[in-house]
């Protein structure tokens, strides 16, 4: 709306800088909450999508239990593992609907105190993934070894070896391990009470993937089974169907649910579950945002109305000088929009700068089941927030602008005897 009253509106706002700033701050706060929420909704969805995509498989077969917990485990790493008999793999793998399948044995090692930094905020356990390299890598073709000084010659371990490991990027950084170094892990074998300390040799360090793989120790599946004394078990079967759709999925699920010990979980389901769980939290934040918006709106209406009343005389004079109803309306309305614009810009910047804090706060409140960044403030989110705030300004300005525009000059100027 290019307008000749822009300068005048700006000067009017500058007249009461504190009041204008406070009102804009109210708008800013509301916008910051809204932007953070938007960034959270968006970022969380993307984080889940990415985590799931980076699993490499669409379907998991796992021991009966809480599918949410199981999924979280896969996406983020965690404890509370349940195991399947290892012959499940043999039974399932020849299903004609399957394009690819990989067995994974997940075990949890206690944190080895040899780490360089051991602050309390860090996990006190490490995830050991026993894998079958060829089928695992087929699922995750993006896995690459880190190169450069100390990392060169990185490769997968010999499937028969008992003491070779490949480290995820972050874990290697954190533990400051390079290729050729030793890696120690303390494991309590199934059925025993005394932990056993293992010394492994690092044969490769992976590049960053942005997923739970970054914090994982990979070793041959048989070595892992040995270490945990579960020679005939596995944790999870990751699967890709030849054609993934709802019908195939149902058919596949029905077929294999006949095995008494398993559940079949599609990651689509996992995603829906995670999204709906977090949806509750998001609704609460949305409620806060709505309240902030209402409060800000009242603040804006109040400020503009006050300034209209203060300037009654001026408005009357402008009308005497030839300003039409529409001119006054436009002026006051512009002032409202400018406050909202200012507030929304400040709020967006605030939210953008504070996104890290918001992320920490959210993560400390609830376990969201994904690793990686969950608050993503994109230009799109900011664009929506600013347009939303202008839309609110549009309405907030209507009443004060109408009041001002409807003043009669004689009453407003007030130079009569009255």
């Amino acid at each position, binding site marked *: 709306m290019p307008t000749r009253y822009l300068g005048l509106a700006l000067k009017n706002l500058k007249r009461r800088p504190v009041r204008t700033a406070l009102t804009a701050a109210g708008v800013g706060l509301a916008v910051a909450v809204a932007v953070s929420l938007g960034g959270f909704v968006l970022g969380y969805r993307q984080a889940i999508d990415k985590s799931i995509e980076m699993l490499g498989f669409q379907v998991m077969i796992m021991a009966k239990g809480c599918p949410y917990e199981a999924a979280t485990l896969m996406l983020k790493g965690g404890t509370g593992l349940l195991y399947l008999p290892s012959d499940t793999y043999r039974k399932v793998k020849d299903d004609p609907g399957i394009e690819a399948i990989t067995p994974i044995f997940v075990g949890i090692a206690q944190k080895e105190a040899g780490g360089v930094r051991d602050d309390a905020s860090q996990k006190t356990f490490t995830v050991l993934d026993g894998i079958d390299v060829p089928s695992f890598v087929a699922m995750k073709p993006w896995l690459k070894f880190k190169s450069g000084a100390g990392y060169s010659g990185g490769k997968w371990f010999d499937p028969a070896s008992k003491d070779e490991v490949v480290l995820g990027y972050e874990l290697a950084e954190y533990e400051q391990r390079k290729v050729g170094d030793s890696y120690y892990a303390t494991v309590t074998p199934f059925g025993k009470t005394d932990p056993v300390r293992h010394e492994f040799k690092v044969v490769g360090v992976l590049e960053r993937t942005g997923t739970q793989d970054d914090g994982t120790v990979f070793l041959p599946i048989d070595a892992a089974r040995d270490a945990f004394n579960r020679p005939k078990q596995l944790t999870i079967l990751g699967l890709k169907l030849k054609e993934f759709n709802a019908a195939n999925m149902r058919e596949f699920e029905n077929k294999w649910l006949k095995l008494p010990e398993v559940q079949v979980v599609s990651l689509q389901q996992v995603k829906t579950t995670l999204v709906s769980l977090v949806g509750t939290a998001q609704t609460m934040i949305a409620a806060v945002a709505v309240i902030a918006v209402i409060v800000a709106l009242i603040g804006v209406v109040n400020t503009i109305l006050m300034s209209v009343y203060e300037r009654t005389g001026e408005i009357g004079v402008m009308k005497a000088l030839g300003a039409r109803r529409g001119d006054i309306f436009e002026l006051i309305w512009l002032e409202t929009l400018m406050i909202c614009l200012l507030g929304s810009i400040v709020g967006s910047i605030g939210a953008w700068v504070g996104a890290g804090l918001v992320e920490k706060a959210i993560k400390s409140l609830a376990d969201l089941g994904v690793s990686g960044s969950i608050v993503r403030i994109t230009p799109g989110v900011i664009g929506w927030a600013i347009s939303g705030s202008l839309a609110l300004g549009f309405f907030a300005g209507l009443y004060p602008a109408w009041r001002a525009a409807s003043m009669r000059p*004689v009453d407003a100027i007030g130079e009569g005897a009255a």
Partner: protein
Amino acid sequence: MNTLIEARGLKRYYRRGSETVKALDGVDVSIREGEMVAVLGPSGSGKTTLINLLSCLDAPTEGTLTVAGKSVAGLDEDRLVEVRRGVLGFVFQRFHLLPTLTVTENIELPLTFLGRAPDPKRTQEILAMVGLTDRAAHLPNELSGGQMQRAAIARALMIEPRILVADEPTGNLDKKTGESIFRLFKQLAAKGLAIIITTHNASFGREADRAITLEDGRIVKEERTDAAK
């Protein structure tokens, strides 16, 4: 000369609770081009009421009124503003400059309302006419009362009105400053502008072309002065 304002039987009643205040109670006036008319009378006699009606800021309760050829009695504010625009210039007792705007911005403001672009040359001319050339970039609070009133007059003149209306323009000024403002009005009238001013100063009344004296909302005296051509 052309008649710019023609009022017949003009009445303006105010309701104050159950009682009716007859601020103006049947006034006939006509004002011609280039004529300077002073409205005199004691406080509360209806001067402001009359001048507000004649300048289309307010609507009469009764009577007929023609301003610049248009019949305006009974019009609402949205129509009255159309009559005022470009025809009437206003000067107020308390100046009423916008405090955030410089003198130049203040005097160019009415052009914005009329959708006209300011012409810097014209602005300069008018500033020179009111003697404010060296105050063009000042804010109102940096001016003396007399300077503020000159700025207000410049603002009124900017749109080249046919009628200038001033309600006690010298009321907030000292005697000497008031006289200089009054002389400025006389010069403007000499150039063909119709001017209506209200004043408590009887000597201004004698110097105008015509003086109308009100009492209790009625004209009690109307004199064509020696100053009339």
